């Protein structure tokens, strides 16, 4: 028979180390359904029993404030593992025990793993484990996972605890609430709607677990009234709310437990660890930001100096492949539309996705290193103040910064934000960061029309993007996410040297997700564009009479007020949706000119004024297909539609405004 156990515990309690010691390499990493949170599963065999282990995300409690906590809670409540091994930091007992008593209240079989016993000893904390075990009514194992100590004991105790045994029913005295709790519990028992501890559920309902409340509301309509009455009573009695009252009662109980079981030689001077010393420098008020910018600069250098040659190689290979496929189809006397579909459509399409891959993989490599070392959490701290002025918090900074390289990893990096609001807002404004694909368009036009002030013109577009991002973030926040920013509260992990295995693994999981999910959408879009460019039959590919050419012509009046009302510009912008740098190539093809010649042709069609208006449009209008696909992947169609439409409208309005106002001055 095989058993299923779960590892639970606070963040940074050494849970993952315990998991690795238990399961070794027999682990499987995936995602929790419907989320991007990593799910780790493994198993070990001890005394001929196969024990499956699920590593839950680190949580402080069963109250679900973040995605991580919701996953852990749902798993514990719905999947009912045979045993929960709660790994707790022995040197931080009171807070760590909080989760345990919540589990016990739910009548969940628990085994307590007192981890980091060495740290506790160092801090002169003596824990009477026998007494603790007796008070809580559960078995306790002492481990030092970082040194591999106590794991055999742990396995033995796990097996022992899997056998059915009488468990003491754990109860906390909630004073004034007792009557209400019993009333709800007996109602729950009568209706038999939920499995598990009726009393535990009753407390959770009073603790504002709305999910649970909604589930029982139908069967027990009077429950809301009971709750309201209790709420009023507590408010009258303590002046506070139900939730706080319950939490306080739990802590009051824990305080007693700790007083009885823990002897601590009082030393006020918290010993500064190596991590703290590093933090003195890395999160320093003055040095923090420059150091952070320096690390980001290094990251960028790595991603783009190392990645771009590889990306060019990929691009070149696919270009050649497309070329030779075309030739192959011609030689074989196969219909030319088929050759065009395969080479212009499929191969170029796949190429346009894969060309991002080297940069993305390197970027994720960098992020994984920063993340595993513990620095990424510090970066959020350092940038919090600045980002606050934008209505976002520190953690949003990294996605924005990455956007300058490529919006796709930028959008994906928004995953690190817990609050959905912050995540969506950060994703929505990310395409306004001028990605590296837009640079070729900027430089082409800047060198043709503003040869004296090229740098300034390009720089102005970057600044314009940032300014707009601030503005758009404020507006969207006002429209969609009224109310305050979820305040940044997070625990910093101690600095660690990242392991090669973890870093590579997380780089791989993230990159392959991009290829899989974004790839399919991009692929479909590419084929669609190919169709539009090739139909009706026999037309010149993407020529004036192709569907896309006609579509471009339809757009002409739309772009006229912005100063570039000719179909080539329209088609170039349409193709630019595939990838922004394609704007340059398309203009080249349509005007039948190479790079140098192209400047000449452009000078005939554009004025400096309309050229800049065109650049504004290129910066703002519609994110590229890959970015759209990524936005869809990270959010939903509704937000994706908003991202596409707001950018299109904003781009158009600004380029028209610029052109028209400019004309007034130019006379």
């Amino acid at each position: 028979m095989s058993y299923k156990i779960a590892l639970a515990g606070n963040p940074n309690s050494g849970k993952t180390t315990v998991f690795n010691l238990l399961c070794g390499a027999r682990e499987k990493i995936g995602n929790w359904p419907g989320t991007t949170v990593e799910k780790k599963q493994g198993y070990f065999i001890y005394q001929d029993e196969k024990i499956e282990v699920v590593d839950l995300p680190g949580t402080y409690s069963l109250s679900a404030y973040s995605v991580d906590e919701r996953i852990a809670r749902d798993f514990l409540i719905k999947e009912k593992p045979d045993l929960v091994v709660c790994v707790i930091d022995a040197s931080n007992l009171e807070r760590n025990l909080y989760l345990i008593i919540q589990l016990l209240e739910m009548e969940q079989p628990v085994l307590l793993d007192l981890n980091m016993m060495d740290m506790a000893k160092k801090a002169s904390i003596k824990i009477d484990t026998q007494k603790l075990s007796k008070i809580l009514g559960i078995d306790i194992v002492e481990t030092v996972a970082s040194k591999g100590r106590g794991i055999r004991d742990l396995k033995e105790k796990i097996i022992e605890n899997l056998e059915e045994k009488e468990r003491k029913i754990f109860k906390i005295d909630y004073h004034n609430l007792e009557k209400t709790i019993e009333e709800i519990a007996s109602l729950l028992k009568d209706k038999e709607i939920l499995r598990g501890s009726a009393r535990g559920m009753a407390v959770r309902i009073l603790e504002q677990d709305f999910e649970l409340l909604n589930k029982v509301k139908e069967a027990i309509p009077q429950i809301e009234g009971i709750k309201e009455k209790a709420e009023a009573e507590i408010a009258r009695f303590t002046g506070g709310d139900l939730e706080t009252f319950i939490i306080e009662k739990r802590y009051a109980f824990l305080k007693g437990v700790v007083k009885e079981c823990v002897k601590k030689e009082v030393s006020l001077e918290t010993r500064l660890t190596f991590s703290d010393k590093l933090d003195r420098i890395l999160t320093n008020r003055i040095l923090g930001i420059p150091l952070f910018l320096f690390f980001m600069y290094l990251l960028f250098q790595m991603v783009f100096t190392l990645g771009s040659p590889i990306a060019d190689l990929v691009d070149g290979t696919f270009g050649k492949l497309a070329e030779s496929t075309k030739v192959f189809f011609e030689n074989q006397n196969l219909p030319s539309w088929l050759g065009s579909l395969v080479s212009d459509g499929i191969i170029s399409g796949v190429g346009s996705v894969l060309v991002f891959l080297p940069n993305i993989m390197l970027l994720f490599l960098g992020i994984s290193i920063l993340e595993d070392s513990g620095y990424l959490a510090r970066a959020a701290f350092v940038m919090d103040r600045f980002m606050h002025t934008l209505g976002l918090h520190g953690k949003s900074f990294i996605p924005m910064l990455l956007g300058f390289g490529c919006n796709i990893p930028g959008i994906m990096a928004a995953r690190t934000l817990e609050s959905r609001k912050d995540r969506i807002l950060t994703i929505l404004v990310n395409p306004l960061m001028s990605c590296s694909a837009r640079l070729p368009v900027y430089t082409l036009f800047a060198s043709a029309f503003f040869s004296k002030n090229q740098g300034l013109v390009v720089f102005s577009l970057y600044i314009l993007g940032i300014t707009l991002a601030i503005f758009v973030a404020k507006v969207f926040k006002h429209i969609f996410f009224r109310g305050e920013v979820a305040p940044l509260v997070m625990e910093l992990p101690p600095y660690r040297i990242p392991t090669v295995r973890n870093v590579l693994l997380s780089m791989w999981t993230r990159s392959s997700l991009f290829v899989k999910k974004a790839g399919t959408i991009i692929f479909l879009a590419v084929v669609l564009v190919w169709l539009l460019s090739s139909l009706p039959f026999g037309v010149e590919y993407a020529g004036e009479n192709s569907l896309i050419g006609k579509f471009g012509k339809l757009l002409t009046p739309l772009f006229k007020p912005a100063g570039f009302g000719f179909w080539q510009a329209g088609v170039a912008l349409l193709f630019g949706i595939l990838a922004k740098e394609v704007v340059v190539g398309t203009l080249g093809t349509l005007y039948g000119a190479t790079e140098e010649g192209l400047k000449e042709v452009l000078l005939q069609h554009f004025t400096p004024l309309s050229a800049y208006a065109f650049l504004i449009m290129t910066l703002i209008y519609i994110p590229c297909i890959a970015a759209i696909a990524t936005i869809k992947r990270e959010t939903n169609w509704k937000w994706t539609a908003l991202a596409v439409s707001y950018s299109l409208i904003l781009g158009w309005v600004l380029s028209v405004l610029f052109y028209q106002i400019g004309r007034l001055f130019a006379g």
Partner: protein
Amino acid sequence: MMPLSMAEEGRLARIVRIIGGRGFVSRLMNMGIKEGEVIKVLNNTRGPVLICLGNSRIVLGRGASFKIFVEDVKEDKNEL
């Protein structure tokens, strides 16, 4: 009594009061940040504050550190 955002670096402080919405206060309480607790201010960049509570290092962003009120704890009193 002052907001945590004004607390001096390197000082010990006792949390006296936490204001804010229901979710915010209980979220902090679940992390062990609650009234009566003594913390050490490791780093304060005029807004986001890095504190030491027991064995953990917790960042309280600008929004959060303005809502937590603390008082000074004299170093010689053994209150941790």
